[in-house]
Structures are given as C-alpha cells and as structure tokens.
C-alpha cells in the first residue's frame, strides 16, 4: 500500500471548496472555544453536530475533528498569557508558559507551542497512516468476543484514568451503558426502559445527551460562581518567532513529544491530557537543568504542546481501525458517522476511503491553517479572551436550545437536553465525571450486541472470553483494574477516616 499516493487522493477531497471551507470553520471554532473559558471541545462538537446532518459525512467529520485539534492550539494561548488553561490538555503549559510570559517571552512561548503542535500534529499523522492499515487488517479477523473484551477494557481504562474517584467513574460508565439500553432491543425487538414514553422507543439521541452533559451543565456550574474581573496584563507581544537558542533547546522535546503523544493517544481515555503530563515530566527528568522547570523553561512548553497535538492523531487509530472510540471526543465523531449511516470498523477504511483519507489530509491542512491563524492573529485571540461571561453564557445556552431542536425538529429533545443538563450539574456537584458516561452510552449498543453474539457463538459458555488470547488479555486487564479500584476505595477511606479521627482528637 503506497501511503503517499493514497494521501494524495485525500488531498483531492480536502481541496474541494466545501471541505476546505468546513475545515477552516472547524479549526477556527476549535481555536475560539479553546481560548474561551466555560466550554470545551466536547461541548462545541455536540452543539455543532446537528449542523453536520445536511452536509456529506466527510465534510462533517473534517469540521468536527478540526474543532478537536483546534482547541489544543487555542488552549495554549490562555495558558501562556493568563495562566488559565482554556483546555485541560494545555493545563501543564501554564507552569512554564506563563512564567515565560511574565519574563516578556510570551511570543517565543506561543511561537514554539504552535510550531511544536504543527510538527507533532503532522508527523503523527504519518504514523497514523502507517499503523492503521495493518491494524485494520488484523481487526478484520476479530470476532464478537474480541470486540466485547476490547470495549470492556476501553471503558475500564477510561474510568481508571478519570480525574476524580475511580469508583464514581465506574458508576458513571455503568449508568451510560444502561442509558444505551433504552429503546428497542435490536435483537429481540423488545422495548426496554421506555416507561410509556413513545419518543424513547428509538433510544436516546447522542446530541441532546452530550449537549446537556457538556453544554448546559457546564454553564449551570459556572453561573453560581461570582465573577472576578480578570486583569490581563499581556502588553504587546513581540518576537513571535523563537530564536536559534530556543530551537536548539526545543527540538528534542518536540521529537520526544511527538512519540509520547502519538502512542499515549492510542490508549483509551488518556489521549491529549495524559500525554502532555507525561511529556512534561519526561522533559523535566532528563533535562540537564531541571531547576529551570516551573520558571520558564521552554522545553516545558515545547514538549507537552507537541504531545497533546500528536495525541489527537493517535486517538483516531482505535476509532478508524476498530470502530471503538477511545475517548469522548472520538465517541462524538463516531456518533456523527453513525448518523450518516457509516459504521467505522476494520472495513471502514476500504469501504469509505474518501472519508478516511479526506479526514487525514484535512488534518494536515487544518494544522497549517492553525499555524497561520495562531501567530499573526494573536492580538485578536487576546481580545476574544476578554469577552465577558455575561455575553458568552446566554449564547452557549441559546446554541444548545437551537441545536437540540434541530436534530429531529422535536421539543422532546430539548427537554431531554435540559434534564441531562440538570443531571450533569448535580453529578458535577458530587464530583462525578461525565466523560465515562457518554463514552459508555455510545459503546453500549455495540457492547451488548458483541456480548450476546459471543454467548450464542459459544452456546452459553462464558469461557469463550478467556480462551481467545486477545479477549483474554483484555478481560483480565479490565478485571484487574476493576478490583484494584474497589480495594483502593476501601483503603483510601480507611486512611481518610484515620486522618479525620486525628483531626478530631486535636
């Protein structure tokens, strides 16, 4: 398979004016919401999901993925300039990026971050092309037991890597799977958990669910906090281009960041956030002057910023080769493809080469656009940062209201969205994370089908999951994570209780 001639076909897809335009819209919106606080790429993608119904699938996917990697570029700007991560994956950049800005070196920090992002984003696409074909070839031989086991593993790893409590994340994943069961059972045709609500018999829609959990609840959580006016002392940003010394120090971190990001991006859950942290700690550990980290070391910006972009490419691999989304962002992309009647999986690359190659090629173009958008327009992004919350939040709410209605032209969807907005708000209050819920919701129907098919295949023998090597490894790994989680909670509770006892005794 000649990768480069294939890619050429992809570029032909992107250079169709409509795709080019939507690619631009995607990266622009992505960068915008990366800069804006209060809404992340998941929220923005779910709000714009209905806008992709009327356009060809490849165009929609090009736009949605643009939002994803565009947000990484945007998040960097706020991390460096105001010490507030616009996006979780750029949080680590605050450490050294903001320090560089305080020393008047905001320009080189932003410059190297953009260059690193570009290099990481584009080089990892080559890895993606090299890896996805052989993997899809192997995956064709996978049966339902392998799929079931891999999805279980994906979900447990996502829960395991969640920010808060592991056990809470597992509960969220179970809840998501149950929500996925609502509606008509595909195999028996029986209607489940509908409780007389006719509109539910087709199941819940991903759009109102995602908008409620990631749009409405985000706004509800934020409006209760009193807003302190943040003061931006950014001044004029000069010398965007890093000098030769900067390049010398950053080159290796960028190369390492590309590898770290890409390979961690393939793993479920981790993606861009994890890889940026791993890259930072790696650079700090092997640096000849680790004491500079936290005080404006350019390596601490170049590495993580490269890694989080490289990870976006890695995350496409499980989705494109197996049809299993490794994180929420990919789950929404899967949702977009499913709405167009395309099921990603090992055959996807062969059946829909235009969608596959077009998306890959669009990421080259998109990364280039971002580089151009980012540096010269930095002044505009700083001004965007100053848009007050009182204008932003009503707009987000209105977009959610319009978007949820647009899916099926039904008020029912708006109500579903509001309900999940409230549910999400309460869950956030109790420190439950929504990402495992949404991912499980998307995986639910596939997981159930694979589970039941496997049992039929083995005539009810559960050992089918253990006698096949790939599913055996995946199942054992998920069980190991699950059990370590339960014991971990008991153990942590014990230490916390003894701590409180000590406090009370004081």
């Amino acid at each position, binding site marked *: 398979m000649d990768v480069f001639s294939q890619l050429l076909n992809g570029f032909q897809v992107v250079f169709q004016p409509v795709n080019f335009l939507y690619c631009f819209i995607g990266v622009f919106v992505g960068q915008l919401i990366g800069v804006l606080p209060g809404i992340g790429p998941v929220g923005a993608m779910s709000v714009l999901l209905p806008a992709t119904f009327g356009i060809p699938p490849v165009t929609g996917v090009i736009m949605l993925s643009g939002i994803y990697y565009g947000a990484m570029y945007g998040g960097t700007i706020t991390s460096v300039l105001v010490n507030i991560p616009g996006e979780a994956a750029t949080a680590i950049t605050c450490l050294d990026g903001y320090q560089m800005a305080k020393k008047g070196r905001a320009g080189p920090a932003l410059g190297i971050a953009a260059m690193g992002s570009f290099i990481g984003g584009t080089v990892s696409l080559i890895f993606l092309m090299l890896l996805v074909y052989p993997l899809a070839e192997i995956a064709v031989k996978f049966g339902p037991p392998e799929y079931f086991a891999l999805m279980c593993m994906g979900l447990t790893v996502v829960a395991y890597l969640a920010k808060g409590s592991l056990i809470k994340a597992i509960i969220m994943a179970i809840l998501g799977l*149950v929500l996925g069961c609502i509606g008509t059972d595909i195999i028996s045709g029986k209607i489940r958990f509908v409780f007389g609500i006719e509109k539910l018999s087709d199941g819940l829609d991903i759009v109102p669910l995602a908008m409620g959990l990631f749009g409405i609840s985000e706004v509800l959580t934020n409006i209760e906090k009193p807003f302190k006016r943040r003061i931006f002392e950014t001044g004029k940003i000069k010398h965007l281009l890093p000098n030769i010394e900067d390049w010398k120090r950053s080159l290796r971190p960028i190369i390492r960041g590309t590898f770290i990001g890409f390979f961690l991006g393939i793993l479920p859950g981790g993606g861009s956030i994890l890889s940026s942290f791993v890259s930072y700690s790696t650079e700090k550990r092997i640096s000849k002057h680790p004491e500079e980290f936290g005080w404006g070391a350019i390596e601490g910006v170049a590495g993580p910023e490269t890694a989080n972009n490289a990870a976006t490419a890695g995350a496409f691999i499980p989705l494109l080769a197996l049809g299993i989304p490794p994180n929420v962002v990919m789950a929404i992309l899967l949702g977009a493809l499913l709405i167009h009647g395309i099921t990603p999986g090992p055959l996807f690359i062969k059946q829909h080469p235009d969608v596959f190659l077009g998306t890959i090629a669009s990421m080259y173009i998109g990364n280039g656009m971002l580089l151009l958008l980012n540096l010269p327009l930095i002044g505009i992004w700083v001004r965007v940062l100053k848009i007050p919350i009182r204008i932003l939040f*009503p707009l987000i709410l209105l977009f959610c209201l319009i978007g949820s209605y*647009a899916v099926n032209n039904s008020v029912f969807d708006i109500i579903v969205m509001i309900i999940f907005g409230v549910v999400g708000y309460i869950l956030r209050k109790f420190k439950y994370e929504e990402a495992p819920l949404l991912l499980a919701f998307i995986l639910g129907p596939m997981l159930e089908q694979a589970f039941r098919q496997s049992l*039929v295949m083995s005539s009810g023998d559960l050992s089918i999951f253990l006698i096949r090597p790939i599913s055996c490894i995946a199942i054992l790994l998920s069980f190991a994570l699950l059990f370590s989680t339960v014991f971990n909670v*008991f153990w942590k509770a014990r230490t*916390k209780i003894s701590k*409180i006892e000590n406090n009370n005794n004081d």
Partner: protein
Amino acid sequence: MEKNDFIPGLIWMGLGIAIAMESFSLKLGSLNDPGPGLLPFILGIGLSIFSLPILFSSLKIIIIGDKKNKVGMWSEVNFKKLILVLVSLIGYSLLLEKVGYLLIGFVVLLILFNIIESQKRTTVLILSFITIIATYLLFVIILKVELPPGLLRIR
C-alpha cells in the same frame, strides 16, 4: 469519599435494584440464548455492588463526624439564578412551537442576559436583538435548520 456521598450512594443502590428488577421482567433468557434483559440485569447488579464502597466509606465518615468539613456543598449555590435559568429554558421548550423561534428566543435572551449578570436595560435589549437576528440568519437562512415560525410567520 465524603459524607455528602452517602445520598448519591443510596440512589445508585436503589437505581441498581430497580434496573435489575425491570430487566428481570424483560426476560433474561439463558446464557446460550441471551434475552433483552440479560445485560441490563448484570448492569443493575453491578451498579448496586459498586455503590457499596461509597455507602460504607461515607457512612463511616458520618458516624465518626468530620469536624473539618463544615461548609455545606450547596452553600455557595445561587439558587435564584439557577432556577431562573432553568425556568427560562423550560419555558422556551414549551412555547417554541406555539410562539415561534424569533419571539420566544428574543424573550429568553432578554431574561438570560439579565439574570446571568445584571446589566443596563438598553444593553440587554440591543444584545438580544442582535443575537436573535444573527442566529436566525445563521441557522435558518444559511444552515437551513428548521425552526418553528410561530406567530410571526416569517420563514
């Protein structure tokens, strides 16, 4: 875990049992012919099991008494704002098809711009007007999203 986690723990436990019971009535089938209730049944049981560690550890903290964490988690919530936002969202969804997007959207924007952070009347009016026209142009005219015309009968 904190003591606040007790009530959610109870809810998960109850929900898990309810899901398992409902799934049971859906027919579990057998292992070699799994029915529509089998997976949800397992999930319901799983939910109940995983609620146990939450229940136990939060209950223990309640019994011992946590002197340090006195501030309630709801103390900083601005319920008035929260409820007003929710009421306007629900009002929008109930009236959308009767009144039409332009009118109800405008009214909801007036309310939202006001309650999220109070500002001058004229600013709110101008902002809402610009927003409603801009979104109408973007969604209805350019993206061809169908929004109910309602009383104004403009399409």
